Structures are given as structure tokens and as C-alpha cells.
């Protein structure tokens, strides 16, 4: 099952862009607002943002691609991020990550076939004292082992 979401309408995108234009340096707030509304920053938004801010389309692309958290396609219903930084690796983070990937049958940044879970690597959640760490839909989880990961993934519907 793939999620069917209607393509964002240009007028809606323009409205979202306009809502942030009063800010100083509005590009990042605009990208956040769009991602919040649509779960990703659609390509069709790039020329509109470039036009509104009077900058090059390439510049907008440069900023979007700099930040891993801006998506170019919608994620699954739940996003699970697993820390792959040094502290987590030192206490078994790699094994947890491999377990999760194997169970879901996807690669990093992949989404399960039923559209339930997107899995992503992250480099440090600031939870080194409780490593290995993960994050589910913005909520951090500490001391994750294979069993806890299974639990989290099941809850998410994978």
C-alpha cells in the first residue's frame, strides 16, 4: 500500500510561503512550514520559493539538500531514527540498526511496503548516557536493544 496524497497546489504553497515572508531570513521557516504541511518539500515548491525570495532555484536546492531532514518525498506514517554515532556504536548500536533493517526489509531511508515506517540513520541524539538511542516520530528512546526495537516497530505497525 502506498500513500496517495494529492499533489500540493501552487496556490496553497504560495500561501504558506507568504505566511513566513515577514521573518528575517525566511527561507528555513518556509521550508519547515511546507514540510510540516505536506510531510516533505515538493520539487514544485522550489521555483515558487525562489521567485518569492528572488533567489536562484539552485540556491533553494542547495539549502534543502544541505539538511537531511528536509524530504523530497513523503515519509511513512512513522519515522524511526537510529543513532549511528560513536557512543551508540560502542554499546551495540550497530547490531540494533542491522536488526531493524533486516526486520523491515529495507535500506536506510527506506519505507516499508505498507507505508508504516521510514527508517533513517541519525548522528547523535544527545542521549549518549542511555545508548543505544533511537527516535520515533520525534520522541527519543534510550537503551534500545533488539527486543525493544521490535516492540517499537510493532507499535508503529511494521
Amino acid at each position, binding site marked *: 500500500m502506498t500513500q496517495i496524497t494529492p499533489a500540493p497546489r501552487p496556490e496553497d504553497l504560495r500561501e504558506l510561503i507568504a505566511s513566513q515572508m515577514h521573518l528575517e531570513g525566511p527561507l528555513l521557516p518556509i521550508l519547515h512550514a511546507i514540510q510540516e504541511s505536506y510531510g516533505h518539500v515538493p*520539487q514544485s515548491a522550489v521555483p515558487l520559493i525562489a521567485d518569492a525570495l*528572488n533567489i*536562484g*532555484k*539552485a540556491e533553494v536546492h*542547495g539549502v534543502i*539538500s544541505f539538511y537531511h531532514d528536509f524530504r523530497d518525498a513523503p515519509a511513512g506514517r512513522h519515522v524511526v531514527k537510529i543513532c549511528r554515532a560513536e557512543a551508540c556504536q560502542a554499546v551495540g548500536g550497530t547490531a540494533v540498526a542491522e536488526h531493524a533493517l533486516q526486520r523491515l526489509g529495507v535500506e536506510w531511508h527506506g519505507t516499508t511496503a505498507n507505508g508504516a515506517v521510514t527508517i533513517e540513520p541519525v548522528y547523535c541524539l544527545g542521549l549518549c548516557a542511555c545508548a543505544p538511542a533511537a527516535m520515533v516520530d520525534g520522541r527519543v528512546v534510550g537503551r534500545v536493544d533488539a527486543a525493544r526495537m521490535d516492540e517499537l516497530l510493532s507499535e508503529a505497525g511494521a
Partner: protein
Amino acid sequence: MKDFIIPWDDRDMGTPAKTGKPVTLTVDGVEVVVPEGTSVMRAAAEAGISVPKLCATDSVEAFGSCRLCVVEIEGRRGTPASCTTPVAPGMVVHTQSSKVRKIRKGVMELYISDHPLDCLTCAANGDCELQDMAGAVGLRDVRYAPGENHFEVRSSGEANARYIPKDESNPYFTYDPQKCIVCSRCVRACEEVQGTFALTIEGRGFDSRVKAGMAGDDFLSSDCVSCGACVQACPTSTLQEKSVIELGTPERSVVTTCAYCGVGCSFKAEMQGDQLVRMVPHKQGKANRGHSCVKGRFAWGYATHKERILNPMIRDSIDQPWQEVSWDEAIGFAAERMRGLQEKYGRRSVGVITSSRCTNEETFLVQKLTRAVFGNNNTDTCARVCHSPTGYGLGQTFGTSAGTQDFDSVEHTDVVIIIGANPTDGHPVFASRLKKRLRKGAKLIVIDPRRTDMVKSAHIQAAHHLALRPGTNVAVVTALAHVIVTEGLADEAFIRERCDWDEFREYAEFASDPRHAPEAVEALTGVPAEELRKAARLFATGGNGAIYYGLGVTEHSQGSTTVIGIANLAMMTGNIGRTGVGVNPLRGQNNVQGSCDMGSFPHELPGYRHVKLPEVRAIFENAWGVQIDPEPGLRIPNMLDAAVEGTFKGLYCQGEDILQSDPDTKHVAAGLAAMECVIVHDLFLNETANYAHVFLPGSTFLEKNGTFTNAERRINMVRKVMAPLNGYEDWQVTQMLANAMGAGWDYTHPRQIMAEIAATTPSFAGVTYEKIDEMGSVQWPCNEANPDGTPLMHVDGFVRGKGRFIVTEYVPTLEKTGPRFPLLLTTGRILSQYNVGAQTRRTDNVVWHDQDVLEIHPHDAETRGVKDGDFVKLASRSGETTLRAQITDRVSPGVVYTTFHHPDTQANVVTTDFSDWATNCPEYKVTAVQVSPSNGPSDWQEDYAAQAAQSRRIQAAE
């Protein structure tokens, strides 16, 4: 690479030059004085010491990313990057300590660990800064084991996800990401030098890559305008000219001048023997300062295009096929016919058209041909159809027929008015320089019916865009004057000192009349009154105000009036006679300024002196040993009228395609068809040649010596880099024709022609080839008073004495819209094509513009049932043609726009024969038209194509 012509200092100084008070420092024991704000790297370069570098180059600001240029500075901690560290008084810098050597070697080792080692087969071999720096830092070995990289197509059997294949979408250069060291020089060149912002760095960290446009774009589909600044900035072969990939690195270079637009960019033609490898804009070129556009840098392939005609051809009548003959036979045939026509129809039955694309020397000879050999003044040039109103208007008000500034002046301007010009397309290098100034805060007012890229594009936006109705320039300019006068914004001190006060009073009275108020003319011009008032206030009070204008001003029935109005605006605001201000026509062709200076007009001898003046005639009569006809000759439209009447029979037309470029194509064709001897001297069988009896092959700017004069009156040297493929430079051909008619000229080099020009023309009195060689270029007037030329005109007083205000009454054009022709057509050009396209259509530039399209507003399109890309019929009272529609809101409702680059569209079959009241400059910019859906070519297009095919036949050699 050696420069065998002139030993220019072409070193890369690392960072741009600065101006400021002098600072003294010591670099490696050498004391050096540089302006405040200069980088340590540049100071070292001034002292003759090259600090290793990769991400720095002197065309863009320092970035500090490669860390190769680190130095040690006494009293400072660490190893600062010399490119981003400004000098300080008394600084002691060491560029070569063991510490920095070690750092550099380590940095270089890291760079090379992610770079393919295929130097021997790389296109940049021998011209690669990465290679040079590896040598300079003494890199002897790379200790890193192969790992993740960007250059292997497959690593350990699997496809390498980081490898990106070469982007070959641009016709002139390739982007090869595997060679990229992500120094960002290309991205910065695109932003700082060109101002297009088409490139970025995508991703972060090890994933960082140079990217054109947004996701999914390649170079061709991105905003890239192919100026090549990125290619020039690239230190490796990542961005590389395809010509270098094919031919290899050049071994010598010759400094010459571009033969496209009136900016007059200096280039280094980089050669292998007589094979041109690439054109690189010359850093010391004072017009372009090391920048160029797609035409000058890349579009030179026409010089060797297979359609170029290399042998002379003749025919008795135009329905016959061409017959290739020897030069002697062709010249003899032409001379005999011309003499015969003069005997039969009189001395004044023949004439010449000089070229704005040929050199000053060649133009001088062509007008000399008609004045000294034909014995009449029947000479005209394509300036007739472009900037003749500039000559008249500025001559009347200021006293000279040329722009007042040099291009450097734009760096000091605060408010710019652009009126009737589209510099990003027509004068791209000037546009880049202007955009740079705008990004630094200068304000811009655009007066144009169309929303050009100057109105709004990345990082620039006009403060005011006055989108007037075509044909109402005079009303708008006078309304601006109205606001300035009635709101007390005029610079009275300047006017009292520099201008005729009584004339100003008269003009002020005229302008303050309520009928010229913005509110009164709003309905006529379509410009909101409040916007116009704000624009006037901004120009009058915003600091240094400069006006740049183009053919949107001149090509109207009131072209001369608008030029006068512009001059009035500049004078009443005190914006004349210093840096950063002035009135500047953007001249269309490379040497249109020069062709006017050289006496191409029927009433003026070289130097804009009227032919009726006996003292002027005497100068030339003495020099040439002939009598000069005191009667002015025929202008181009008069020649054509006279031909139709049967009194004008023979024409020598050098390097101009009047059939395509002049208005009302049908009338031009009828005129040409009525002549008995049309001699076309050109590179290609152009449209005019369809009606010619003699075709003399021309030479390109690469094949001749001479000079071009650009829009800033700058006389630039054109240097021969290869022998003419056709056998002769154009001045030699003119000389052969003149001699066949009994002239006895014996020039052996264009420098002798320039000596004759200098001897007879006061504003060129001090010009010699030696002086141009020595100075690089010189701006006329160059004479005893100004031995090194004149970058700024009218500094202490106007050339004519007091600046003259002339009343500018608005008289609407007779070309009016009505029920049958409700839309207004205005014409212009596009970046990738040049004029009638004879050159650029024969290059890969056609990938950007392979046909002329009609821009139409969505509202007008909808009411006519026209969809984007549809074939439409464009009809006026003069004629009709068909082309494809492009729906865009760049044009206002009621206005349509097209270009005139393609002969199969022939926008000029639609334009009318209305023209400027003073100079006959045709009204290309206003034609009442109707647009309707169509199935295909109009009858006229089909007939024309058939006639052209018939006329272009060349008889097979027997």
C-alpha cells in the same frame, strides 16, 4: 602559455584588487605596499611571491575553503588562510615555513585521495591548477588506501553510488563531477561575476557536489546562460570547454576584440597554430574586465561553417544560378557594371552601405569608395536603423554623438534608469557589471513594456518598473521631467553653470504644463502616476544617476525626441560630467559607434562634419586628390525608394543584411530587385544576396587586423589570428574594387588607413596603432588636448559649450491600433542569438533559440483561442507571417513581442515603414497587429522560401 603579441601581466593574483590607503608589510623578507583591505595572498603576489592556492582566484572574493594558502604571520597564533586575511601595517608574513609546508602537503594529499590519477589523458593536462599545486607543494605520495570516493564507476564490483556521470548537455562545455574538488569557484563566479545564481553546492560534507539548477536539472535545463565564467574559474577539468577536450591545450594566444555586440569585450584567442582552440575574456580588457557572454566566448564556430562562401561569384541576373569565378573576374565584372550604370544613369545612381560589423578602417574605405571613386555621398549604414536618433539627439543637446561614460562608471552609480534596453540579452557583460552594482545597493528604474530580467531576477529587483505602452516613451520621459521641475528637484546650480538658463526656463515651462503631469498621461501611457512620481523623485534625489538606453528608445517615430528628453533629464538633475552618471546608449553592434564615426552617413564626413562645409571637404579633397560632392547623398530608405523609381541602380553592401534587418521586407525586396548591380560582400549567402549579382566573400574578425569602437567610444584592437579563408581581408577587397574603378589606392596595412583617419579627423588625431598597442585601448576624443583619450565626456563643460534643453512635444505615432489590428507588436532580441542571426544561427547557440516565438499575454491568448506552442498568424497592415506562440505575463495585455533572428519567420515583413522624424530610423518597436490561430506558414513565407532556394543555387564547376 606565452602571449606572442603583447606581454600582458596575466597572473592570477588570488583575490580581487582593492582601493584604500596604502599599507606596508613584509612578505618573506620583501617589503610591499598595497591598498588597505588587500588580502595577504594578493600582497604576496604583488611582491612576486605565489602562495599555493586552489579555491582562490582574483575574479571572485576569497572563500577560505581549501586551506592550501595558509601562512604564518609573526605575532599571530596559528596558520591563517592568506586569501581571507587582510593586510595590516607592519605585518611580517612567512609563506614558506616548515609548518605551513607540512600542512599544505597534508591538504593536497587529502584532495588527491579523492581525485582520479588520469592526468595524462585528462583534458586539463598542462592547464590544471590541481596538478600545478601538487607540484608546488611537493606531493610525492598518497598514503590513504582506496576507500569511498567520487571517481570510480564501480568500486569492489558494485556500482559506486557516489559516482555521477559527465553532464554533456551544454553544447560548449562539460561538467565532470569526478574531477571536482568542490572549491566553489564556479558557484561564486556564477554569482559574483555573472550574477545568474544558476549553480550551487548540493549536499554536505563528503556528499557535497556542484549542481546546476535544482534536483533533476542538468546544465542546459538550469538557469545557466552559458557565459562560461564557471569554466574559466574552474581549476581542474571539471568544467571544460568541449573544444579543448577535442583539440588539446592551446600553445599561443592573441589579444583581440569580440565581433558581437557594442560592449566590445577583449578576448584572448587561444590558438594551436592557426587553429582557434578557445576564446578567453581578457582580464585587462577595460570594457569587460575578464568577463564574457555565451556569444563571445563560445559562438565562433560560424567562422568555419560549411555554408561560408569562400570563392567570389557572379551572375547576370538574379534568376540565374551563381557562378564561381576568380577574384579578378568578379572584381572586374563589378567594376565594369558600376561604371556602366554611372555612365548610363548618372554619377549618383550608385552607392554603398557600410558595415557596423567590419573594422573602422574597412568602413572608412567603403565610404571613401563612394565619395572619392563613385563621386557622390550615397553612403549609409545600419546605424540608420538603430542608433541614428542617438547621434542626432545627443549631438544637438551635448555636442557629441556618443555615450558620455566608460563602463567602469557603472560601479559608482547610485540610481540607474534603463529605458528601452534589455541588457541581460543584448549587452550581457554590461548587464553583469550593472547587476553587481545593484547587488551592492544601487537602485534601478526600468522603463520597458516588457518585464525583462532586469526588472526582477535572482538578487536584483527594480525599485520601479514603468511598463509603458509601446510608443509612449516621450510622454513618460516628459512626465518624469514634469515631476522633477514641479517638485523643485532640478539641480539649479548645475543648470546655471553648465547649460543655457533661458532654454531651461523655456523647457521647464513646457514640462510643468499640467498636461504633462503623470496623472494626465496615465491613461495614454498605462504607467500608474504614483509609480512614475516615485521613480522621478528617486532619480532626482538618489545620488549619482545614470541613464542607459537602447533601441527601445530610438526605433520609434519619435526616437530622436526621446533621446533629447533623456539628455534633458540628465542635465536637469546635474547627472553629467563625472563618474557614475551620464547618458549612455547601449550600441547594438560591435562597431556601430565606429561606423558612425567613420563618416558612413550620407550628410557627414568622418568625425560628424557636414558635407556641405567647404573647409571640411577641403581636408578630404587635399588628402584624396578628388572633388567631393557637396550634396548629401541618399539614406538607405531613400536608396530603396529611388531604386523602385528607377533612379538608383547599383549598390555595394558590405557586411549587412538589409533584407532581413530593415523594416518592411517587401519594400526592401522590391528596391533590391529593381537594381541592376547589387554587390554583396559577406561571409554567407545572406538574405540580401538573394537579390545580388556579385558576391564577394568576406573575412571574419579572426582573419583581419583593424579596430572596433565600442559603445563607450573605446577603440579596441582587432588582431589577425589566422589567414583569411577567402584569401583577402575585407579592406583589401574594397581596395581591389576601388582600384578596378581607377582609384590607385596602395594601402598595405590597416595602420596606414588609421593614419589617414587620424590625419583628417580631429577626434582621432592622436590615435595610432602604437598607442592602442601600448595602452590596450583608447577612448576618443584622442587628440592634443586628450593624448590618452577621454573616458568621461563633458567634464568641465559640454562639447558644444552650454548644454541645450530642447522642448519634447509628444506626437503619437501614426501607427495605431484599431478593430482589425488591436495589439501592439514590439520586437527585440535574445541572449543566444545576435541580430539577424547569420553568425549565431550557424553555431550551437540554436539549442537555446531555434526559432522566433511570439510572446503573448495569457488574457490575449485566451480570447483568441491560442495555446502555448500553437502556430499563430501575426498580421499587420504591411504583411503577415506565422510563428509559434509563447504565453507569458512578461508582456502586458495588449502587447506582443518577438525577436527577428530567423529569416524564415521574418518579423520585419510585419513591421511598417514609419520612421523617426529626424533620422529616418525605422519604427520597429511599434506595429499594430492581429494574432490568430494558424495551420502553417503564410503564403509570403512559402514564396520567400522558394525564391531564396532558387536564388541560392550555385552552378557546379565544369
